[in-house]
């Protein structure tokens, strides 16, 4: 199992995340796509750590931080969504286009 396979898997997951990020109409699904992105990044970090930095495993330390921050970010994100939902009574991303031209 060479490194490239992990990287390709991570890249594929990242692309799926991006796709979900820009096509989802539900705001919660957008947050879920962001989690996919972060997970693909984590796979990258762990893979690099495993193949290139077995001694210090800096990548794994990074990953722990990323998971932590991702949890916090998801919490804030959901709070924002909730705040918007309370005002506008919807989580449809197509309805959030007030700040245009």
């Amino acid at each position, binding site marked *: 199992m060479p490194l490239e396979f992990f990287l390709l898997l991570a890249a594929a997951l990242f692309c799926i995340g*991006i796709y979900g990020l820009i*096509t989802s109409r539900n705001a919660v699904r957008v947050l879920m796509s962001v989690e996919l992105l972060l997970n693909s990044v984590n796979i990258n970090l762990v893979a690099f750590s495993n193949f290139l930095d077995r001694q210090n495993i800096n990548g794994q330390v990074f990953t722990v931080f990323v998971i932590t921050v991702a949890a916090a970010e998801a919490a804030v994100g959901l709070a924002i969504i909730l705040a918007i939902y309370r005002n506008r009574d919807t989580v449809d*991303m197509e309805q959030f286009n007030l700040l245009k031209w």
Partner: protein
Amino acid sequence: MTQFLLHTVWLIPCYAFVGAIASGLWSPALIRQTGPRPAGYLNLLMTLLAFVHSLSVFVQVWQQPAEQWSVSWLQVAGLDLTLSLEISAVTVGATLLVTGLNLLAQTYAIGYLEMDWGWSRFFAMLALFEAGMCSLVLCNSLFFAYIVLEILTLGTYLIVGTWYNQSLVVTGARDAFLTKRVGDLFLLMGVLAIYPLAGTWDFDQLGQWAATAQVNPTVATLVGLALLAGPMGKCAQFPLHLWLDEAMEGPIPSTVLRNSVVVATGAWVLIKLEPVLALSPVVLTAMITIGAITAVGGTLIAIAQIDIKRALSYSVSTFMGLVFIAVGTGQTEAALLLVLSHAIAQALLVMSTGSIVLNSITQDLTQLGGLWRRRPISGISYLVGVAGLIGFPPLGGFWALLELADGLWATQPALIAVLLLVNGLTAFSMTREFGLIFAGSPSQMTERSPENFWLVTLPMMVLLGFTLHLPLILQSLGLLPHWADLNKDMALLLLWSSVTGIGIGAVVYVGHSIPKPIQLPWKRLQDLFAFDLYTPQLYRASIVGVVDKASRLTDWFDRQVVDGVVNFVGWVSLFSGQALKYSNSGQGQFYILTIAVGLTTIALSLGWSFVWPYLLTP
């Protein structure tokens, strides 16, 4: 004292100039209480001073060699503009003629403009003309002659436009200015082109240069034609003659001056330039052709006019055409004599007709008639003017025409036919006018037409006397040929042509046998001459039309294309701003897409060299 007068001959133009400036004080805007009359009196006084000064200097310089004086006007790198004056019998004699005629015209104007408020402007312009013409004849430099001619062109514009609330006056002044200006501009081209060739603008040095000059014939022709174009416009020669017809909208006293001497300014420059023009035979031929066409055309048109002033104005063109012929055949003496005799006779004719117009109101020849018994002085003045103008011995015009014909006999006999024809036709035209004004029975407009008061009649009478005495004066100055040298055949031919013209004119217009108004069997021909060969339409179709179209096109091009290109740039920026703002869709996901696309593009462009080989391999 006499020496002092001789040395201050340059004052002659200055008197009138002072008068011109001082007249401004009596303009209605400045003096609101006491009226403009002192402006006229002051100018009359100034002209009298100039006349007396000219006369006293003329006595001294008669039969003396010409003196040249020069004053440096401007010296810049490589160019020395020297104002040179020539004090000779001819130049001082010309100032005498100018100031004398202006003296009479101003006296006439004081009478004629009795009911007019614009004396300040009018007399200032008359004085400007006098100053301009005196400087023109005294100055001996082509360059300064050009300057004066341009000032006089502006003066013509202003004096024709005296009564500017009349629409025909405004168009007439416009045409007078533009037509003369076109000629002047060609003259300027010639003036500028002759300096590298001759290295001088002094008339006498130009003459010396021309005597030995070896110039490329094409260059000589082109320069000569340009120098010819200025006098052509000034002297109202075909095809630049329409302005004189329209300039008849100006006040009659100014017409006196213009018809007699102002148009002769062009002839003066032409006479002075004769040696240079003679360098090219083409120019001489052109000059003779233009002169002959104008002379014949002018008389034919004059015959067909029904306006007194216009009939006379075309005869001015005619006689200036004869001057062109004289200069074209190298007879400057005859040309000068012709200018002199024409000036006096023409001034008398204009004064006489002006005196008729002043209290018969109409200028229409068909509405006048039967004035001989009640207007004997005007009538006699008119007759003497006619006799002095055409070849009618022993008056002045006869001697000038005789000298011209005498010179033509040796070189160009064909032109003698033109001369005799023009003389006869002018005699006919003048007799026609006489018949229509003075003979026949009074019409409605002339039933009560008294002779004018002394201010109008006196200058006319003085000029009448002068016209009658002109041959005696010429004889005492030794300017007339001796009886033995007289070409008697030619004299008889001239006399016969005049008598024939007068005779036919008298039979047709003074007699009662032919019903008037006369219709030629060829109506179109009559209209052609009556409407001046349709020159206005010709101008409008050719030059005016082209310039008008071209300027409209240029204007359109400027507004649409030049401005349009610049405005298009602004419009494109505006439009693109308006259109591109829609890229801010307000959708967060769209912004993320933009970021993703941007990052991918940057990554691809940076990693292109790495990716490309993988894409090529199958």
